[in-house]
């Protein structure tokens, strides 16, 4: 036995050690097998007609639209927040950083209730918004965007803050010596430097928003064409028709994987 090992050792040098390869393979299987389950159980013969059902396409369109809007909202608010956390010393920064990650650990349904308590009809801000501007957010598409943003923003903030911390801040000093104020430095130097991190954060954020269920149904409810996103449609389809649910899941899966792969190719391609 030991002789076999002895002779085998030189040949195997440079190969991936089994202690890493085996758990890695198991990890991959663990992630991919459920997807395979969906594909195997999909009712391929009736797939075309199920796909063209208007309800499915409406939900899909709404999902992509709201996830994209949520990502834009997260970029507008989350990138400056990440910059603040990474670049500005202020008292309570650790606490703020911890607070930013709260939606990650909060069950999304609780997040939805929390949003209702703030933006709902009787919420802290919701009542004022309604009385002053006649704006109500629950049960609207805007409410879906808000719920998705709440759940997805931490992914963006964490990714961008990490990229900002990893980026050499002396480039910003160099920009200052060339006459760039902080805003110009941010837009012309900092953002391009953290571009890949920003892209990764936006992709994570979008993917999380696309799959959002709990906060959305709690805060924005479920109404076809207005607030019924794909995950909600899948959940309700599960109540009556497992195969329908599988088809809808596959569509969601195909669209998200397609978009992620396309974006990744574009962003990660070197010059």
């Amino acid at each position, binding site marked *: 036995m030991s002789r076999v090992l002895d002779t085998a050792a030189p040949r195997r040098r440079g190969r991936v050690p089994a202690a890493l390869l085996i758990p890695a393979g198991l990890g991959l299987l663990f992630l991919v097998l459920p997807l395979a389950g969906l594909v195997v159980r999909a009712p391929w013969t009736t797939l075309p007609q199920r796909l063209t059902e208007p309800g499915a396409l409406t939900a899909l369109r709404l999902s992509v639209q709201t996830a994209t809007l949520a990502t834009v909202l997260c970029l507008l608010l989350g990138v400056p927040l990440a910059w603040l956390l990474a670049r500005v010393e202020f008292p309570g920064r650790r606490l703020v950083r911890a607070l930013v990650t709260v939606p990650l650990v909060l069950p999304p349904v609780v997040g939805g209730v929390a949003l209702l308590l703030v933006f709902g009809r009787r919420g802290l801000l919701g009542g004022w918004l309604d009385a002053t501007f006649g704006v109500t957010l629950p049960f609207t598409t805007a409410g879906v965007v808000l719920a998705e943003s709440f759940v997805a923003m931490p992914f963006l903030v964490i990714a961008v803050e990490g990229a900002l911390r990893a980026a050499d801040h002396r480039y910003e000093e160099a920009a*200052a010596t060339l006459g760039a104020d902080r805003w110009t430095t941010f837009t012309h130097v900092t953002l391009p430097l953290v571009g890949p991190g920003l892209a990764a954060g936006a992709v994570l954020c979008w993917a999380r928003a696309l799959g959002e269920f709990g906060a959305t149904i709690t805060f924005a409810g479920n109404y076809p064409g207005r607030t019924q996103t794909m995950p909600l449609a899948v959940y309700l389809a599960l109540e009556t028709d497992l195969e329908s649910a599988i088809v809808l899941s596959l569509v969601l899966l195909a669209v998200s994987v397609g978009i992620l792969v396309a974006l990744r190719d574009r962003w990660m391609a070197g010059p």
Partner: protein
Amino acid sequence: MSAALLDARLVVDRGTFRLDVPLRVAPGEVVALLGPNGAGKTTALRALAGLHPLTSGHVTLGGVDLDRPASRGWVPTERRPIGVVFQDYLLFPHLSALDNVAFGPRRHGVDRRAARATARDWLDRVGLAGHAHRRPRQLSGGQAQRVALARALAVAPSLLLLDEPLAALDARTRLDTRAELHRHLSAHPGATVLVTHDPLDALALADRLVIVEGGRVVQEGDGPSVTARPRTDYVARLVGLNLYRGRAEDHGVRVAPELTLTVAERLDGEAFVAFRPAAVALHPSRPDGSPRNTWAGTVAGVQRHGDNVRVQVDGPIGVAADVTPAAAAQLRLIPGQRIWVAVKASETHAYPATG
């Protein structure tokens, strides 16, 4: 010294370290801050650039206070008329060489077309006209250094600051780049302050050296005067001299309790004595007659030094001696061996420690 363009007293407290360096630089003058690592050179440069606020003192450029804590005067970095070449250049990796150089003019309100024209002109001047569209990572070390210089000069700064401008280059590139850098620094009409720990860079590039040790200026002057009359061990080592401080009386300088060196000059009071290692002779036994400066010591170290052998000898004073390999072989030098040291008075150079 003509009227100073830059007039500064840089005082920065950082924990237990205190930097306190007065600095005056005339238009067109190049001053090198020379000193060992940790002397505070880079802190001084950052204070001039506004990247580190002064604790006290002032930075006045062309009569304008850029930093004066006493009167709360402060001009932020981006509004100072400065250009900085950083040690590792910090060229923006996402911009071409041209756009790196055009960055400064654009921020100073020049429109895009004019800024690019200025940038193209500067790249041409540093000999990189053909590399305008390369990204920084497609440039060699020497090319990146020249782009960094062009970028700093493109804003026509009143004060040009360079932090170890040649440290990141290999020996060969360094030689070429040093000559070219000298040409551009000589042509720069504003004040120039460069920071380096390399005496060759300082001597080649600067009109005046300011030697900084432990946050203080220990010596100041042009190249020849500093190299001829070092005032600290650091400078003496830089220029390769044995240096001792002692009390002079007539032709003798008492450098150790039981050792008085006889020197050519005649002076009184605190004085330095300097002599070259090549002026030191080593003998296996007490030499007869001629040199008056002889003493016994112990060999502490032997190493090659150019074509010769450098011998460190401990004794009443530590001394470095350069001997030929043949002499070294004859003396059978090994550490711990007793040996006699002799220095001719005519080979020494003594000067007052004050003034």
